[in-house]
Protein backbone atom coordinates (compact mmCIF):
# COMPACT_ATOMS: atom_id res chain seq x y z
CA UNK A 1 0.00 0.00 0.00
CA UNK A 2 1.81 3.10 1.16
CA UNK A 3 5.41 2.73 0.23
CA UNK A 4 8.48 4.07 1.91
CA UNK A 5 9.98 7.40 1.00
CA UNK A 6 6.71 8.81 -0.29
CA UNK A 7 8.01 12.16 0.82
CA UNK A 8 11.19 11.75 -1.15
CA UNK A 9 9.21 11.17 -4.28
CA UNK A 10 7.17 14.27 -3.55
CA UNK A 11 10.41 16.17 -3.92
CA UNK A 12 10.76 15.04 -7.50
CA UNK A 13 7.09 15.41 -8.33
CA UNK A 14 7.95 18.62 -10.16
CA UNK A 15 10.13 16.70 -12.56
CA UNK A 16 7.32 14.23 -13.15
CA UNK A 17 4.90 17.02 -13.95
CA UNK A 18 7.28 18.22 -16.62
CA UNK A 19 7.62 14.70 -17.94
CA UNK A 20 3.83 14.54 -18.24
CA UNK A 21 3.75 17.49 -20.63
CA UNK A 22 4.73 15.47 -23.66
CA UNK A 23 1.75 13.11 -23.53
CA UNK A 24 0.75 11.59 -26.84
CA UNK A 25 -1.95 9.17 -27.84
CA UNK A 26 0.29 6.11 -27.92
CA UNK A 27 1.15 6.68 -24.29
CA UNK A 28 -0.32 4.97 -21.26
CA UNK A 29 -1.08 7.52 -18.58
CA UNK A 30 -0.69 5.52 -15.41
CA UNK A 31 -1.67 7.05 -12.08
CA UNK A 32 -0.33 4.79 -9.35
CA UNK A 33 0.83 4.62 -5.74
CA UNK A 34 4.28 6.05 -5.05
CA UNK A 35 6.90 3.33 -5.43
CA UNK A 36 4.46 0.58 -6.25
CA UNK A 37 5.19 0.00 -9.94
CA UNK A 38 8.73 -1.27 -10.53
CA UNK A 39 10.56 0.63 -13.26
CA UNK A 40 11.64 -2.72 -14.72
CA UNK A 41 7.99 -3.63 -15.38
CA UNK A 42 7.36 -0.33 -17.16
CA UNK A 43 10.52 -0.68 -19.24
CA UNK A 44 9.59 -4.23 -20.24
CA UNK A 45 6.12 -3.12 -21.32
CA UNK A 46 7.55 -0.31 -23.46
CA UNK A 47 10.15 -2.65 -24.93
CA UNK A 48 7.53 -5.24 -25.94
CA UNK A 49 4.79 -2.98 -27.20
CA UNK A 50 6.50 0.29 -28.09
CA UNK A 51 3.94 2.05 -25.89
CA UNK A 52 5.39 4.66 -23.59
CA UNK A 53 4.20 4.86 -20.01
CA UNK A 54 3.74 8.23 -18.33
CA UNK A 55 3.69 7.53 -14.61
CA UNK A 56 2.23 9.92 -12.11
CA UNK A 57 2.03 8.96 -8.46
CA UNK A 58 -0.07 9.57 -5.36
CA UNK A 59 0.27 8.55 -1.73
CA UNK A 60 -3.34 8.05 -0.69
CA UNK A 61 -6.60 6.98 -2.31
CA UNK A 62 -8.05 10.34 -1.40
CA UNK A 63 -5.28 12.19 -3.19
CA UNK A 64 -5.93 10.10 -6.30
CA UNK A 65 -9.68 10.72 -6.08
CA UNK A 66 -9.22 14.44 -5.58
CA UNK A 67 -7.00 14.76 -8.66
CA UNK A 68 -9.17 12.52 -10.80
CA UNK A 69 -12.38 14.31 -9.83
CA UNK A 70 -10.81 17.72 -10.37
CA UNK A 71 -10.28 16.59 -13.97
CA UNK A 72 -6.63 17.51 -13.84
CA UNK A 73 -5.16 14.63 -15.83
CA UNK A 74 -6.21 12.19 -18.51
CA UNK A 75 -5.46 9.06 -16.58
CA UNK A 76 -5.92 5.80 -18.44
CA UNK A 77 -5.25 3.52 -15.51
CA UNK A 78 -5.47 4.03 -11.77
CA UNK A 79 -4.63 1.89 -8.77
CA UNK A 80 -7.37 2.26 -6.14
CA UNK A 81 -7.73 0.16 -2.98
CA UNK A 82 -10.79 -2.01 -2.34
CA UNK A 83 -12.98 0.54 -0.54
CA UNK A 84 -12.17 3.15 -3.18
CA UNK A 85 -13.08 0.73 -5.99
CA UNK A 86 -16.39 0.18 -4.22
CA UNK A 87 -17.05 3.93 -3.89
CA UNK A 88 -16.01 4.61 -7.48
CA UNK A 89 -18.30 1.88 -8.86
CA UNK A 90 -21.14 3.35 -6.82
CA UNK A 91 -20.44 6.81 -8.25
CA UNK A 92 -20.14 5.42 -11.80
CA UNK A 93 -16.55 6.58 -12.20
CA UNK A 94 -15.08 3.35 -13.62
CA UNK A 95 -15.33 1.73 -17.05
CA UNK A 96 -16.28 -1.97 -17.23
CA UNK A 97 -13.37 -4.12 -18.43
CA UNK A 98 -13.50 -6.07 -21.67
CA UNK A 99 -12.50 -9.54 -20.45
CA UNK A 100 -11.84 -10.72 -24.01
CA UNK A 101 -8.83 -8.39 -24.04
CA UNK A 102 -7.56 -9.64 -20.69
CA UNK A 103 -7.21 -13.43 -21.15
CA UNK A 104 -4.61 -13.59 -18.36
CA UNK A 105 -7.38 -13.02 -15.82
CA UNK A 106 -7.35 -16.82 -15.57
CA UNK A 107 -4.07 -16.55 -13.63
CA UNK A 108 -5.77 -14.90 -10.66
CA UNK A 109 -6.39 -17.06 -7.62
CA UNK A 110 -10.12 -17.96 -7.37
CA UNK A 111 -10.71 -15.87 -4.22
CA UNK A 112 -9.51 -12.77 -6.06
CA UNK A 113 -12.04 -13.32 -8.83
CA UNK A 114 -14.94 -13.08 -6.39
CA UNK A 115 -14.13 -10.17 -4.10
CA UNK A 116 -17.25 -8.57 -2.60
CA UNK A 117 -16.32 -5.04 -3.71
CA UNK A 118 -16.19 -6.12 -7.36
CA UNK A 119 -17.40 -9.71 -7.94
CA UNK A 120 -16.19 -11.18 -11.21
CA UNK A 121 -13.61 -8.39 -11.75
CA UNK A 122 -16.08 -6.38 -13.74
CA UNK A 123 -14.23 -3.12 -13.08
CA UNK A 124 -10.97 -3.96 -11.35
CA UNK A 125 -8.08 -6.40 -11.41
CA UNK A 126 -6.05 -6.99 -8.21
CA UNK A 127 -2.47 -5.73 -8.40
CA UNK A 128 -1.22 -6.72 -4.96
CA UNK A 129 -2.85 -7.50 -1.68
CA UNK A 130 -1.60 -7.68 1.84
CA UNK A 131 -2.44 -7.55 5.49
CA UNK A 132 -2.07 -5.27 8.43
CA UNK A 133 -0.53 -7.17 11.29
CA UNK A 134 1.92 -7.23 14.14
CA UNK A 135 5.68 -7.28 13.77
CA UNK A 136 7.84 -7.59 16.87
CA UNK A 137 11.50 -7.87 17.70
CA UNK A 138 11.76 -11.30 19.35
CA UNK A 139 15.02 -10.30 21.06
CA UNK A 140 13.36 -7.56 23.08
CA UNK A 141 9.75 -8.79 23.17
CA UNK A 142 9.55 -12.17 24.92
CA UNK A 143 6.04 -12.88 23.67
CA UNK A 144 3.80 -14.66 23.13
CA UNK A 145 2.17 -12.07 20.88
CA UNK A 146 -1.26 -13.09 19.63
CA UNK A 147 -3.29 -9.93 19.10
CA UNK A 148 -3.66 -6.21 19.66
CA UNK A 149 -4.01 -6.83 23.41
CA UNK A 150 -0.38 -7.99 23.49
CA UNK A 151 0.88 -4.93 21.61
CA UNK A 152 -0.55 -2.07 23.63
CA UNK A 153 0.64 -3.25 27.05
CA UNK A 154 2.35 -1.13 29.73
CA UNK A 155 5.65 -2.96 29.05
CA UNK A 156 5.65 -1.70 25.47
CA UNK A 157 4.68 1.89 26.28
CA UNK A 158 6.85 4.23 24.23
CA UNK A 159 8.21 1.32 22.17
CA UNK A 160 5.39 0.97 19.60
CA UNK A 161 5.08 2.03 15.96
CA UNK A 162 1.78 1.96 14.08
CA UNK A 163 0.51 3.10 10.72
CA UNK A 164 -0.37 6.79 10.66
CA UNK A 165 -3.84 6.04 9.42
CA UNK A 166 -6.96 7.00 11.35
CA UNK A 167 -9.19 4.40 9.73
CA UNK A 168 -6.70 1.62 10.55
CA UNK A 169 -6.36 2.63 14.21
CA UNK A 170 -10.13 2.81 14.60
CA UNK A 171 -10.63 -0.58 12.93
CA UNK A 172 -8.15 -2.28 15.29
CA UNK A 173 -9.88 -0.87 18.35
CA UNK A 174 -13.25 -1.95 16.96
CA UNK A 175 -11.96 -5.47 16.29
CA UNK A 176 -10.55 -5.64 19.83
CA UNK A 177 -13.91 -4.47 21.20
CA UNK A 178 -15.84 -7.03 19.18
CA UNK A 179 -17.48 -4.40 16.97
CA UNK A 180 -17.87 -4.79 13.19
CA UNK A 181 -15.06 -2.64 11.80
CA UNK A 182 -17.07 -1.26 8.90
CA UNK A 183 -19.84 0.15 11.08
CA UNK A 184 -18.13 3.42 11.80
CA UNK A 185 -21.08 5.08 13.52
CA UNK A 186 -20.86 7.92 16.03
CA UNK A 187 -21.98 5.47 18.74
CA UNK A 188 -19.26 2.96 17.95
CA UNK A 189 -16.60 5.67 17.79
CA UNK A 190 -17.70 6.83 21.24
CA UNK A 191 -17.50 3.25 22.54
CA UNK A 192 -13.92 2.65 21.43
CA UNK A 193 -12.65 6.07 22.50
CA UNK A 194 -11.36 5.03 25.97
CA UNK A 195 -9.54 2.01 24.55
CA UNK A 196 -8.00 4.05 21.73
CA UNK A 197 -6.94 6.73 24.20
CA UNK A 198 -5.14 4.13 26.28
CA UNK A 199 -3.49 2.58 23.21
CA UNK A 200 -2.41 5.86 21.72
CA UNK A 201 -0.78 7.01 24.96
CA UNK A 202 1.68 4.14 24.43
CA UNK A 203 2.51 4.71 20.76
CA UNK A 204 5.89 6.27 20.03
CA UNK A 205 5.80 6.61 16.23
CA UNK A 206 3.05 6.93 13.62
CA UNK A 207 4.41 6.11 10.17
CA UNK A 208 2.55 4.82 7.13
CA UNK A 209 5.32 5.39 4.61
CA UNK A 210 8.12 3.36 6.14
CA UNK A 211 7.13 1.89 9.50
CA UNK A 212 9.98 -0.62 9.23
CA UNK A 213 12.54 2.16 9.72
CA UNK A 214 11.90 2.77 13.40
CA UNK A 215 11.83 -1.00 14.04
CA UNK A 216 15.08 -1.75 12.25
CA UNK A 217 16.76 1.29 13.85
CA UNK A 218 15.88 -0.07 17.29
CA UNK A 219 13.78 2.93 18.26
CA UNK A 220 10.74 0.72 18.87
CA UNK A 221 10.24 -3.02 19.56
CA UNK A 222 6.79 -3.80 18.24
CA UNK A 223 4.44 -2.43 15.64
CA UNK A 224 1.21 -2.78 13.71
CA UNK A 225 2.29 -2.35 10.09
CA UNK A 226 1.82 -3.42 6.43
CA UNK A 227 2.71 -7.07 5.75
CA UNK A 228 5.12 -6.13 2.95
CA UNK A 229 7.13 -4.04 5.41
CA UNK A 230 7.03 -6.95 7.88
CA UNK A 231 8.26 -9.29 5.13
CA UNK A 232 11.21 -7.02 4.34
CA UNK A 233 12.10 -6.83 8.06
CA UNK A 234 11.91 -10.63 8.33
CA UNK A 235 14.24 -10.95 5.33
CA UNK A 236 16.68 -8.52 6.95
CA UNK A 237 16.63 -10.37 10.25
CA UNK A 238 14.38 -13.28 11.29
CA UNK A 239 14.21 -11.81 14.80
CA UNK A 240 11.35 -9.68 13.40
CA UNK A 241 8.39 -12.01 13.85
CA UNK A 242 5.01 -11.55 12.18
CA UNK A 243 1.56 -12.25 13.62
CA UNK A 244 -1.93 -11.71 12.23
CA UNK A 245 -3.97 -10.25 15.11
CA UNK A 246 -6.32 -12.84 16.61
CA UNK A 247 -9.09 -10.25 17.12
CA UNK A 248 -9.33 -9.83 13.33
CA UNK A 249 -7.02 -8.61 10.61
CA UNK A 250 -7.43 -6.15 7.80
CA UNK A 251 -6.67 -7.29 4.28
CA UNK A 252 -6.23 -4.66 1.61
CA UNK A 253 -6.38 -5.18 -2.14
CA UNK A 254 -4.92 -2.59 -4.47
CA UNK A 255 -6.32 -3.04 -7.96
CA UNK A 256 -5.94 -1.64 -11.43
CA UNK A 257 -9.02 0.08 -12.84
CA UNK A 258 -9.87 2.30 -15.80
CA UNK A 259 -11.59 5.60 -15.04
CA UNK A 260 -14.56 6.69 -17.17
CA UNK A 261 -12.49 9.63 -18.41
CA UNK A 262 -9.71 7.42 -19.82
CA UNK A 263 -8.72 8.07 -23.43
CA UNK A 264 -6.72 4.91 -24.11
CA UNK A 265 -8.87 2.10 -22.78
CA UNK A 266 -7.29 -0.45 -25.15
CA UNK A 267 -3.77 0.31 -23.99
CA UNK A 268 -4.89 0.21 -20.37
CA UNK A 269 -6.37 -3.27 -20.87
CA UNK A 270 -3.21 -4.33 -22.65
CA UNK A 271 -1.18 -3.24 -19.60
CA UNK A 272 -3.52 -5.09 -17.21
CA UNK A 273 -3.13 -8.25 -19.27
CA UNK A 274 0.64 -7.73 -19.31
CA UNK A 275 1.06 -7.51 -15.54
CA UNK A 276 -1.13 -10.59 -15.07
CA UNK A 277 1.52 -12.69 -16.79
CA UNK A 278 3.18 -14.84 -14.11
CA UNK A 279 6.75 -13.72 -14.85
CA UNK A 280 5.78 -10.02 -14.85
CA UNK A 281 3.76 -10.43 -11.68
CA UNK A 282 6.82 -12.08 -10.14
CA UNK A 283 8.89 -8.98 -10.98
CA UNK A 284 6.47 -6.93 -8.89
CA UNK A 285 6.67 -9.44 -6.03
CA UNK A 286 10.48 -9.29 -6.09
CA UNK A 287 10.31 -5.65 -5.08
CA UNK A 288 7.16 -5.72 -2.99
CA UNK A 289 6.85 -8.97 -1.04
CA UNK A 290 3.11 -8.71 -0.43
CA UNK A 291 0.47 -11.44 -0.79
CA UNK A 292 0.13 -12.24 -4.46
CA UNK A 293 -3.36 -12.43 -6.00
CA UNK A 294 -1.78 -14.22 -8.96
CA UNK A 295 -1.87 -18.00 -8.46
CA UNK A 296 0.51 -18.67 -11.37
CA UNK A 297 3.05 -16.10 -10.12
CA UNK A 298 3.00 -17.71 -6.67
CA UNK A 299 4.31 -20.90 -8.29
CA UNK A 300 7.43 -19.00 -9.38
CA UNK A 301 8.31 -17.95 -5.82
CA UNK A 302 11.32 -19.50 -4.15
CA UNK A 303 10.81 -21.58 -1.04
CA UNK A 304 12.19 -18.78 1.14
CA UNK A 305 9.80 -16.27 -0.39
CA UNK A 306 6.83 -18.57 0.07
CA UNK A 307 7.82 -19.26 3.66
CA UNK A 308 8.06 -15.62 4.65
CA UNK A 309 5.40 -15.49 7.40
CA UNK A 310 4.43 -11.90 6.65
CA UNK A 311 3.94 -12.39 2.90
CA UNK A 312 2.18 -15.76 3.25
CA UNK A 313 1.02 -16.21 6.86
CA UNK A 314 0.93 -19.88 7.84
CA UNK A 315 -2.60 -21.20 8.30
CA UNK A 316 -4.11 -18.17 6.60
CA UNK A 317 -7.89 -18.32 6.28
CA UNK A 318 -8.68 -15.63 3.77
CA UNK A 319 -12.42 -15.83 4.43
CA UNK A 320 -11.73 -14.43 7.92
CA UNK A 321 -9.99 -11.36 6.51
CA UNK A 322 -11.63 -8.03 7.07
CA UNK A 323 -12.13 -5.86 3.99
CA UNK A 324 -12.69 -2.15 4.42
CA UNK A 325 -15.85 -0.62 3.07
CA UNK A 326 -16.06 3.02 2.11
CA UNK A 327 -17.26 5.11 5.07
CA UNK A 328 -17.90 8.29 3.11
CA UNK A 329 -18.26 11.44 5.17
CA UNK A 330 -17.71 9.54 8.43
CA UNK A 331 -14.03 9.55 7.40
CA UNK A 332 -13.78 13.09 8.65
CA UNK A 333 -15.15 12.04 12.07
CA UNK A 334 -12.66 9.18 12.24
CA UNK A 335 -9.84 11.58 11.48
CA UNK A 336 -11.05 14.10 14.04
CA UNK A 337 -11.25 11.42 16.75
CA UNK A 338 -7.68 10.28 16.13
CA UNK A 339 -6.35 13.84 15.91
CA UNK A 340 -8.08 14.81 19.15
CA UNK A 341 -6.59 11.79 20.92
CA UNK A 342 -3.13 12.62 19.59
CA UNK A 343 -3.46 16.15 20.98
CA UNK A 344 -4.63 14.90 24.37
CA UNK A 345 -1.52 12.84 24.97
Amino acid at each position, binding site marked *: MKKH*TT*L*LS*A*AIAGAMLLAGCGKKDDTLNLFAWTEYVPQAVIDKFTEETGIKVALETY*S*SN*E*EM*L*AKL*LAGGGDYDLIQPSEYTVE*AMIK*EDLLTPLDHAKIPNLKNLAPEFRAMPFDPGNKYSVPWLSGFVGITYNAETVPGPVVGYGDVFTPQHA*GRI*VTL*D*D*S*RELVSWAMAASGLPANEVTDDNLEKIKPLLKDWMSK*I*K*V*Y*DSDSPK*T*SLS*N*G*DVDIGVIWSGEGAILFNQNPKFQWVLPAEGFHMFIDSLAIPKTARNKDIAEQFINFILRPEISKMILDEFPYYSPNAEARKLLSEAERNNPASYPPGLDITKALLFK*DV*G*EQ*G*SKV*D*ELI*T*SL*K*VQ*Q
Partner: protein
Amino acid sequence: MAVTAAAAALGSGSSHQRRAGLGPWFCLTPMLGWLLLFVIVPTLMLVVVSFSERDALGRVIYNFNVENYIRAFDWMWLKILGISVWYAFLTTVICLILGYPVAYFIGRSDERLRGLLIMLVMIPFWTSFLIRTYAWISILSQEGLLNAALMGAGLVSAPIGFMYTPFAVVLGLVYNFLPFMILPIYTSVEKLDGSLIEAAYDLGARPARVFAQVVLPLTQPGIAAGILLVFVPAIAMFAITTLMGGGTNPTIGEVIQNQFTKARNQPFGAALGVLLLILFLASLWLSSRFRREQEA
Protein backbone atom coordinates in the same frame (compact mmCIF):
# COMPACT_ATOMS: atom_id res chain seq x y z
CA MET B 1 24.77 59.06 21.37
CA ALA B 2 26.29 60.72 18.33
CA VAL B 3 26.75 57.27 16.90
CA THR B 4 23.09 56.25 17.21
CA ALA B 5 22.13 59.53 15.61
CA ALA B 6 24.44 58.70 12.73
CA ALA B 7 22.84 55.29 12.44
CA ALA B 8 19.38 56.78 12.39
CA ALA B 9 20.46 59.20 9.71
CA LEU B 10 21.80 56.31 7.66
CA GLY B 11 18.56 54.39 8.04
CA SER B 12 16.36 57.19 6.75
CA GLY B 13 18.74 58.34 4.03
CA SER B 14 17.60 55.79 1.50
CA SER B 15 13.95 56.80 1.23
CA HIS B 16 14.03 59.39 -1.54
CA GLN B 17 11.00 59.37 -3.84
CA ARG B 18 10.51 59.47 -7.60
CA ARG B 19 7.46 59.15 -9.80
CA ALA B 20 7.43 56.00 -11.94
CA GLY B 21 6.71 56.24 -15.67
CA LEU B 22 5.20 53.57 -17.92
CA GLY B 23 8.54 51.84 -18.49
CA PRO B 24 8.93 50.46 -14.97
CA TRP B 25 5.33 49.24 -14.99
CA PHE B 26 6.02 47.41 -18.23
CA CYS B 27 9.05 45.76 -16.64
CA LEU B 28 6.95 44.78 -13.66
CA THR B 29 4.26 43.04 -15.76
CA PRO B 30 5.77 39.53 -15.56
CA MET B 31 6.04 39.80 -11.79
CA LEU B 32 2.55 41.20 -11.39
CA GLY B 33 1.21 38.46 -13.64
CA TRP B 34 3.03 35.89 -11.59
CA LEU B 35 1.62 37.31 -8.34
CA LEU B 36 -1.89 37.35 -9.78
CA LEU B 37 -1.68 33.80 -11.10
CA PHE B 38 0.16 32.09 -8.26
CA VAL B 39 -0.67 34.18 -5.20
CA ILE B 40 -3.91 36.10 -5.59
CA VAL B 41 -6.00 33.61 -7.57
CA PRO B 42 -5.03 30.57 -5.39
CA THR B 43 -5.70 32.57 -2.23
CA LEU B 44 -9.13 33.56 -3.49
CA MET B 45 -9.83 29.91 -4.38
CA LEU B 46 -8.78 28.92 -0.88
CA VAL B 47 -11.18 31.45 0.63
CA VAL B 48 -14.06 30.30 -1.59
CA VAL B 49 -13.46 26.61 -0.80
CA SER B 50 -13.24 27.40 2.93
CA PHE B 51 -16.88 28.58 2.85
CA SER B 52 -18.05 25.46 0.97
CA GLU B 53 -19.18 21.91 1.74
CA ARG B 54 -18.02 18.55 0.41
CA ASP B 55 -19.61 15.22 -0.50
CA ALA B 56 -18.77 11.65 0.49
CA LEU B 57 -15.97 11.39 -2.06
CA GLY B 58 -14.47 14.71 -0.99
CA ARG B 59 -15.75 16.74 -3.93
CA VAL B 60 -16.21 20.40 -3.06
CA ILE B 61 -19.82 21.60 -3.19
CA TYR B 62 -20.09 25.36 -3.49
CA ASN B 63 -22.81 25.88 -0.95
CA PHE B 64 -22.07 28.86 1.25
CA ASN B 65 -21.73 28.13 4.96
CA VAL B 66 -19.48 29.12 7.86
CA GLU B 67 -19.49 25.67 9.49
CA ASN B 68 -15.79 25.13 8.81
CA TYR B 69 -14.79 28.27 10.68
CA ILE B 70 -17.02 27.43 13.64
CA ARG B 71 -15.35 24.01 13.80
CA ALA B 72 -11.88 25.54 13.48
CA PHE B 73 -12.29 27.44 16.74
CA ASP B 74 -12.57 24.23 18.73
CA TRP B 75 -9.91 24.04 21.49
CA MET B 76 -8.32 21.02 19.79
CA TRP B 77 -7.30 22.86 16.62
CA LEU B 78 -6.27 25.92 18.63
CA LYS B 79 -4.06 23.74 20.80
CA ILE B 80 -2.44 22.25 17.70
CA LEU B 81 -1.86 25.76 16.39
CA GLY B 82 -0.41 26.71 19.78
CA ILE B 83 2.04 23.79 19.67
CA SER B 84 3.08 24.72 16.13
CA VAL B 85 3.67 28.35 17.11
CA TRP B 86 5.67 27.20 20.14
CA TYR B 87 7.91 24.96 17.99
CA ALA B 88 8.38 27.81 15.51
CA PHE B 89 9.19 30.25 18.32
CA LEU B 90 11.82 27.91 19.82
CA THR B 91 13.28 27.33 16.37
CA THR B 92 13.51 31.07 15.70
CA VAL B 93 15.17 31.85 19.04
CA ILE B 94 17.73 29.06 18.68
CA CYS B 95 18.43 30.01 15.05
CA LEU B 96 19.00 33.61 16.13
CA ILE B 97 21.35 32.65 18.98
CA LEU B 98 23.32 30.27 16.75
CA GLY B 99 23.07 32.21 13.53
CA TYR B 100 23.97 35.72 14.64
CA PRO B 101 27.57 35.00 15.71
CA VAL B 102 28.12 32.92 12.58
CA ALA B 103 26.73 35.65 10.32
CA TYR B 104 28.76 38.29 12.13
CA PHE B 105 31.96 36.29 11.89
CA ILE B 106 31.46 35.64 8.18
CA GLY B 107 30.47 39.24 7.46
CA ARG B 108 33.52 40.67 9.21
CA SER B 109 36.04 38.17 7.88
CA ASP B 110 38.44 38.64 5.00
CA GLU B 111 36.66 39.17 1.68
CA ARG B 112 38.13 36.11 -0.03
CA LEU B 113 37.31 33.87 2.92
CA ARG B 114 33.79 35.32 3.05
CA GLY B 115 32.77 33.79 -0.28
CA LEU B 116 33.99 30.40 0.80
CA LEU B 117 32.23 30.54 4.17
CA ILE B 118 28.93 31.63 2.62
CA MET B 119 29.25 28.78 0.16
CA LEU B 120 29.65 26.37 3.09
CA VAL B 121 26.38 27.70 4.53
CA MET B 122 24.69 27.22 1.16
CA ILE B 123 26.03 23.77 0.27
CA PRO B 124 23.35 21.82 2.20
CA PHE B 125 20.76 23.46 -0.10
CA TRP B 126 22.14 21.42 -2.96
CA THR B 127 20.43 18.39 -1.44
CA SER B 128 16.71 18.06 -0.81
CA PHE B 129 15.79 18.91 2.77
CA LEU B 130 13.99 15.57 2.97
CA ILE B 131 17.18 13.66 2.25
CA ARG B 132 18.99 15.71 4.88
CA THR B 133 16.20 14.97 7.33
CA TYR B 134 16.52 11.25 6.61
CA ALA B 135 20.23 11.61 7.35
CA TRP B 136 19.35 12.96 10.80
CA ILE B 137 17.21 9.89 11.42
CA SER B 138 20.19 7.62 10.86
CA ILE B 139 22.32 9.80 13.13
CA LEU B 140 19.82 10.06 16.00
CA SER B 141 18.22 6.60 16.05
CA GLN B 142 18.98 4.10 18.81
CA GLU B 143 21.31 2.14 16.59
CA GLY B 144 22.54 5.32 14.95
CA LEU B 145 25.87 7.15 14.79
CA LEU B 146 25.39 9.44 17.79
CA ASN B 147 24.45 6.64 20.18
CA ALA B 148 27.29 4.48 18.86
CA ALA B 149 29.75 7.33 19.50
CA LEU B 150 28.39 8.05 22.98
CA MET B 151 28.50 4.39 23.97
CA GLY B 152 31.92 3.91 22.39
CA ALA B 153 33.27 6.81 24.42
CA GLY B 154 31.74 5.28 27.54
CA LEU B 155 29.60 8.34 28.19
CA VAL B 156 26.33 6.41 28.37
CA SER B 157 25.65 2.75 29.12
CA ALA B 158 22.37 2.38 27.20
CA PRO B 159 21.31 4.08 23.96
CA ILE B 160 19.33 7.30 24.35
CA GLY B 161 16.04 7.73 22.51
CA PHE B 162 16.70 11.00 20.68
CA MET B 163 14.35 10.30 17.80
CA TYR B 164 10.60 10.94 17.83
CA THR B 165 10.77 13.54 20.60
CA PRO B 166 10.09 17.31 20.66
CA PHE B 167 13.89 17.67 20.85
CA ALA B 168 14.25 15.91 17.50
CA VAL B 169 11.51 18.07 15.95
CA VAL B 170 13.15 21.34 17.02
CA LEU B 171 16.58 20.06 16.01
CA GLY B 172 15.27 19.19 12.54
CA LEU B 173 13.62 22.60 12.21
CA VAL B 174 16.68 24.52 13.45
CA TYR B 175 18.96 22.59 11.14
CA ASN B 176 16.79 23.27 8.10
CA PHE B 177 16.05 26.93 8.81
CA LEU B 178 19.43 28.10 10.16
CA PRO B 179 20.71 29.34 6.75
CA PHE B 180 17.58 31.51 6.42
CA MET B 181 18.66 33.29 9.59
CA ILE B 182 22.36 33.51 8.73
CA LEU B 183 22.02 34.92 5.20
CA PRO B 184 19.97 38.09 5.87
CA ILE B 185 21.99 38.92 9.00
CA TYR B 186 25.18 38.37 7.02
CA THR B 187 23.96 40.86 4.41
CA SER B 188 23.42 43.47 7.14
CA VAL B 189 26.78 42.78 8.77
CA GLU B 190 28.56 42.99 5.42
CA LYS B 191 27.15 46.48 4.87
CA LEU B 192 28.20 47.58 8.35
CA ASP B 193 30.38 50.69 8.19
CA GLY B 194 33.58 49.89 10.11
CA SER B 195 34.28 53.57 10.74
CA LEU B 196 31.13 53.81 12.89
CA ILE B 197 32.46 51.04 15.12
CA GLU B 198 35.85 52.72 15.29
CA ALA B 199 34.15 56.01 16.15
CA ALA B 200 32.32 54.33 19.00
CA TYR B 201 35.58 52.94 20.37
CA ASP B 202 37.24 56.34 19.97
CA LEU B 203 34.45 57.87 22.00
CA GLY B 204 35.29 55.44 24.82
CA ALA B 205 32.61 52.76 24.46
CA ARG B 206 33.43 49.26 25.65
CA PRO B 207 32.83 46.25 23.32
CA ALA B 208 29.50 45.34 24.96
CA ARG B 209 28.22 48.87 24.46
CA VAL B 210 29.50 49.06 20.91
CA PHE B 211 27.60 45.87 20.16
CA ALA B 212 24.40 46.97 21.88
CA GLN B 213 24.30 50.54 20.58
CA VAL B 214 26.01 50.36 17.19
CA VAL B 215 26.22 46.86 15.75
CA LEU B 216 22.84 45.56 16.90
CA PRO B 217 20.77 48.56 15.70
CA LEU B 218 22.57 48.58 12.36
CA THR B 219 22.03 44.86 11.75
CA GLN B 220 18.44 44.99 12.96
CA PRO B 221 16.91 44.85 9.45
CA GLY B 222 18.78 41.60 8.87
CA ILE B 223 17.58 40.19 12.18
CA ALA B 224 13.98 41.15 11.40
CA ALA B 225 14.18 39.55 7.96
CA GLY B 226 15.77 36.42 9.44
CA ILE B 227 13.09 36.09 12.09
CA LEU B 228 10.32 36.34 9.50
CA LEU B 229 12.03 33.91 7.13
CA VAL B 230 12.36 31.33 9.91
CA PHE B 231 9.26 31.84 12.03
CA VAL B 232 6.60 31.96 9.32
CA PRO B 233 7.55 28.83 7.35
CA ALA B 234 8.41 26.94 10.56
CA ILE B 235 4.80 27.24 11.79
CA ALA B 236 3.38 25.51 8.75
CA MET B 237 6.20 23.00 8.15
CA PHE B 238 4.90 19.43 8.10
CA ALA B 239 7.33 16.97 6.52
CA ILE B 240 10.17 17.49 9.01
CA THR B 241 7.89 17.46 12.04
CA THR B 242 6.28 14.19 10.94
CA LEU B 243 9.58 12.47 10.19
CA MET B 244 11.45 13.64 13.29
CA GLY B 245 8.55 13.70 15.75
CA GLY B 246 6.92 10.42 14.77
CA GLY B 247 3.56 12.11 14.23
CA THR B 248 2.60 11.93 17.93
CA ASN B 249 2.24 15.69 18.28
CA PRO B 250 0.54 16.87 15.11
CA THR B 251 1.39 20.37 13.94
CA ILE B 252 -1.02 22.63 12.08
CA GLY B 253 0.77 21.89 8.80
CA GLU B 254 0.24 18.16 9.25
CA VAL B 255 -3.42 18.66 10.14
CA ILE B 256 -4.09 20.82 7.08
CA GLN B 257 -2.33 18.35 4.82
CA ASN B 258 -4.46 15.58 6.31
CA GLN B 259 -7.70 17.44 5.55
CA PHE B 260 -6.75 17.69 1.89
CA THR B 261 -5.82 14.01 1.68
CA LYS B 262 -7.04 11.30 4.05
CA ALA B 263 -9.89 13.17 5.71
CA ARG B 264 -11.40 14.15 2.32
CA ASN B 265 -12.32 17.52 3.76
CA GLN B 266 -10.83 20.23 1.59
CA PRO B 267 -13.22 22.96 2.84
CA PHE B 268 -12.13 22.47 6.45
CA GLY B 269 -8.46 22.34 5.45
CA ALA B 270 -8.97 25.53 3.47
CA ALA B 271 -10.57 27.22 6.48
CA LEU B 272 -7.58 26.29 8.65
CA GLY B 273 -5.30 27.55 5.89
CA VAL B 274 -7.11 30.89 5.72
CA LEU B 275 -6.81 31.30 9.50
CA LEU B 276 -3.11 30.55 9.29
CA LEU B 277 -2.79 33.12 6.51
CA ILE B 278 -4.51 35.74 8.66
CA LEU B 279 -2.09 34.92 11.47
CA PHE B 280 0.87 35.43 9.12
CA LEU B 281 -0.48 38.72 7.81
CA ALA B 282 -1.05 39.90 11.37
CA SER B 283 2.51 39.07 12.37
CA LEU B 284 3.87 40.81 9.25
CA TRP B 285 1.78 43.88 10.01
CA LEU B 286 2.90 43.92 13.65
CA SER B 287 6.57 43.60 12.74
CA SER B 288 6.43 46.37 10.14
CA ARG B 289 4.56 48.64 12.60
CA PHE B 290 7.16 47.87 15.24
CA ARG B 291 9.94 48.79 12.82
CA ARG B 292 8.27 52.06 11.85
CA GLU B 293 7.82 52.98 15.50
CA GLN B 294 11.49 52.31 16.11
CA GLU B 295 12.54 54.46 13.22
CA ALA B 296 10.29 57.31 14.32
